[in-house]
């Protein structure tokens, strides 16, 4: 047993559609330590949400969905669990926070009922003690007059409060790992900060590990310990927050950092040119080759593996690193985000 609570190995989620196979997640591996916040970053459609739902086995039940690979939770492969056993893990050991709090609460039941449902299912608690837990959870996430609020329906909550309600729900059974799928994307900026504070405090308090799926690099810088950058269904770079923000190796990571506006800067933003590849029809070589400013012949021919860069635990899938011709010849090239931006 290691100190990792979750190890994802070569996770692949393919969707069989009329147009062909969509390789939404194509060989993703990462590890999460206890109490750690890992960010999975990438643009829309890069497979980050599908990755998180595949871990929870929320995809893969239909014939058209094919999930392979290993998801080791405390050394036990979740992919091999029966449907019923998986139900017991979901919500209790692993829980999930979805993107849009407006739609992720059931409009027909009170918020308290929905939170109390968790201890009732997983811990066989009675109605009363489950309800008390619900109120306690709402208190924990900072909802004022929680006892009264628990009796209210989702439509009586504001967006930020609903997301707190969802967080309270995900915490109700004291999980080891929470997967938060863009938990702040649908919220106002001021509310975003509050929600991030709550998440950080909870981690500090309970030691719950968190996988934070997001496209917002601000959130990553604010909250996370390690980062995995995803592009077109693969992880292209992985490392600590300093690795990624201060010493980004992959041209895509650099491009991402350059497309974030910096306060006070008069420079124009440099967007990454072009579009991500079609997931129906992926290139043989590096998936970023078409948009990469440093593209070489071998990038088009063969896909690079994820290999360790300078510092330990910092991995990059790029031929530039493999060649050993890191910084030197690109040092002055535009598009390098080498200063800390947040």
């Amino acid at each position, binding site marked *: 047993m290691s100190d990792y609570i979750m190890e994802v190995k070569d996770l692949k989620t393919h969707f069989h559609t009329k147009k062909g196979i969509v390789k939404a997640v194509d060989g993703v591996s990462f590890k999460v330590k206890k109490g750690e916040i890992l960010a999975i970053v990438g643009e829309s459609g890069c497979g980050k949400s599908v990755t998180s739902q595949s871990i929870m086995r929320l995809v893969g039940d239909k014939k058209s969905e094919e999930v392979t690979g290993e998801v080791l939770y405390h050394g036990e492969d979740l992919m091999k669990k029966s449907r019923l056993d998986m139900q017991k*893990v979901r919500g209790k050991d692993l829980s999930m926070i979805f993107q*849009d709090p407006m739609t992720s609460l059931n*409009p*027909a039941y*009170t918020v308290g009922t929905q939170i109390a449902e968790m201890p009732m*299912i997983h811990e066989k608690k009675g109605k009363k003690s489950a309800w008390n837990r619900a109120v306690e959870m709402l208190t924990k996430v900072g909802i004022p007059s929680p006892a009264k609020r628990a009796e209210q329906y989702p439509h009586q909550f504001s967006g930020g409060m609903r997301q707190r309600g969802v967080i309270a729900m995900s915490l109700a059974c004291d999980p080891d790992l929470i997967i938060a799928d863009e938990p702040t994307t649908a919220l106002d900026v001021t509310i975003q900060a509050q929600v991030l504070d709550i998440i950080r405090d909870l981690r500090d308090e309970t030691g719950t590990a968190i996988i934070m799926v997001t496209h917002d690099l601000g959130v990553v810088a604010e909250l996370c310990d390690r980062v995995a950058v995803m592009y077109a269904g693969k992880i292209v770079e992985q490392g600590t927050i300093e690795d990624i923000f201060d010493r980004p190796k992959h041209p895509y990571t650099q491009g991402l950092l350059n497309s974030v506006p910096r306060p006070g800067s008069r420079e124009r933003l440099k967007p990454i040119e072009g579009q991500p590849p079609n997931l129906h029809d992926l290139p043989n070589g590096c998936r970023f080759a078409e948009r990469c400013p440093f593209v070489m012949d071998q990038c088009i021919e063969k896909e690079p593996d994820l290999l360790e860069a300078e510092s330990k635990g910092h991995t990059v899938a790029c031929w530039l690193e493999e060649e050993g011709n890191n910084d030197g010849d690109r040092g002055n090239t535009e598009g390098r985000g080498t200063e800390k931006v947040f």
Partner: protein
Amino acid sequence: MIQYVIRRLLISIPVLLGISVVAFFMVRLVPGDTVTAMLGNSYTPDQAEALRSKYGLDEPLIQQYFLWLGNVLQGDFGYSQFTNTPVLDAILARLPITIELAVLSVLIAIIIAIPLGTIAALRRNSKFDYGASMFGLLGISVPNFWLGTLMILFLSLYAGWFPSGGFVGLSESIIGNLRSMLLPAIALGTAVGAVAMRMTRSSMLEVTNQEYIKMARAKGVSNERLIWRHALKNALIPVVTVIGIQAGYLLGGSVVIEQIFGLPGVGQLALQAITNRDYALLQGTILFIASAFVIVNLIVDVIYGFLNPQIRY
């Protein structure tokens, strides 16, 4: 809530007044009147006139209307000109039968619609789904009187499982009562069930794609609980509306079905009143059926508020 019900009842007063106008004047647009219906083929104009003035049918129509309305408001629905019995008594005696028929039909509709629609949605594009869709289409297209006739033919006459007609009171024998009511209720409820089933299916499909269903799965909720608890309550909202509207048609349908199965209900009474041009009786039954419609709609709205917490009265 109670306030809301009272308000709704107050609003329904003008509706019922409008219906009384329509009922009163439409009846009189039909060729022939009570007197010609009573006298049959051979009568002299003098005889007819004498009878008309006896019943006050020679007065101006407007005067007749207000006279009738005034009496109705005092609870006096007049006398049947044909049988000479009070209209209210005739209606009240037959009302329980029609109510029982309607309630049973709606129950049968719900029993068909909700499980069938739900399972069809969950097994979308399966054989079960196609079967359910076919049933839905048939149930809507087959006229209830034809279905009723077929059931009498096969289940009553050939198989002998059910009586082919007639009514057994609930107080006489519960089983006998159910046996006499079951076929008419099925004949009447099938169409309602078919429409509601299609609605349940599409509504369920929509709800199961919602984010909160995914959230519930992520919470570790079992599939059964997911469907019957998390999804169904939301999916039922439009279904209740549809059943409510259909229940209105059901009251109309009962006229034909009561006739076919020989059930002495309000529908049959209305039909008799039409053939006999029995004005007071016909006006009375129409007013009762209209009130029933208003009340059914009110019940639907109350249930609606129970299912959908965003609606509070």
